[in-house]
């Protein structure tokens, strides 16, 4: 999981780390990164979708 996290773009990774590792709220993440709340949600959603893609690619690579 940590290795996959490293493959995410920097701005997605920052949001993921703050949200899950530091357990911050959307508002706190927005304050810390100095970006709008909507952008935090968008980044987090896109990061999750990106993560899903990476996981699926990894699974298909292992199964193949």
């Amino acid at each position, binding site marked *: *999981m*940590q290795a996959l996290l490293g493959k995410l773009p920097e701005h997605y990774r920052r949001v993921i*780390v703050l949200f*899950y*590792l530091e357990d911050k709220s959307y508002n706190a993440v927005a304050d810390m990164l100095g970006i709008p709340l909507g952008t935090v949600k968008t980044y987090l959603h896109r990061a*999750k*979708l990106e*993560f*899903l893609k990476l996981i699926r690619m990894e699974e298909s690579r292992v199964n193949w």
Partner: protein
Amino acid sequence: MRCAEFEPWLLEHAEGSLPEEKRPLLIAHLAECAQCRQTLADLQSLDHTLSREIRKPQLSADFNERLWQRIRVETGGAAPTQLPLERVSKVRAEYEAGLRALRRGKILAAGLIDALGLGLLVGGFAYALYKHLPEFLKYNLGLREWGGLDIPVLAAGCAIAFAIGVLIRDWLKPAGQRSLF
């Protein structure tokens, strides 16, 4: 609506933040789309996985002690920052000696340049005096003769002025930076 358009809804639904009015439409879509059901299941699973697996490493209580012990073993008994005192003193002495030599050279060069400038100034002034003062005195003050300077005297004056310049320049410096006194 196509599956791609339901993606943001799926994310919000997985977080529990999907507005009520959108929910029936999503549920209806999920009932007939296996791919979106799978994506929703994956998203919910991902949320749990991220919460569980992305966490700060927990260091054991004796981590620092073991780390330093390992550093000592790998550096042959001495921590990397603890250099032998003799070595430190030697390096410091070499550094300071080099710095002094460098400073002395720079100061001497600066002193010579200053003294040369001063010598040229005094010499130029003396030369102007030698060439034009007699005429000035003769025609403006009524003096007829001015037996005074000649070339050797002028040269000696410049040399003395040069030497005095060097001495004054050096003497004006702080005690530690003088190269002649």
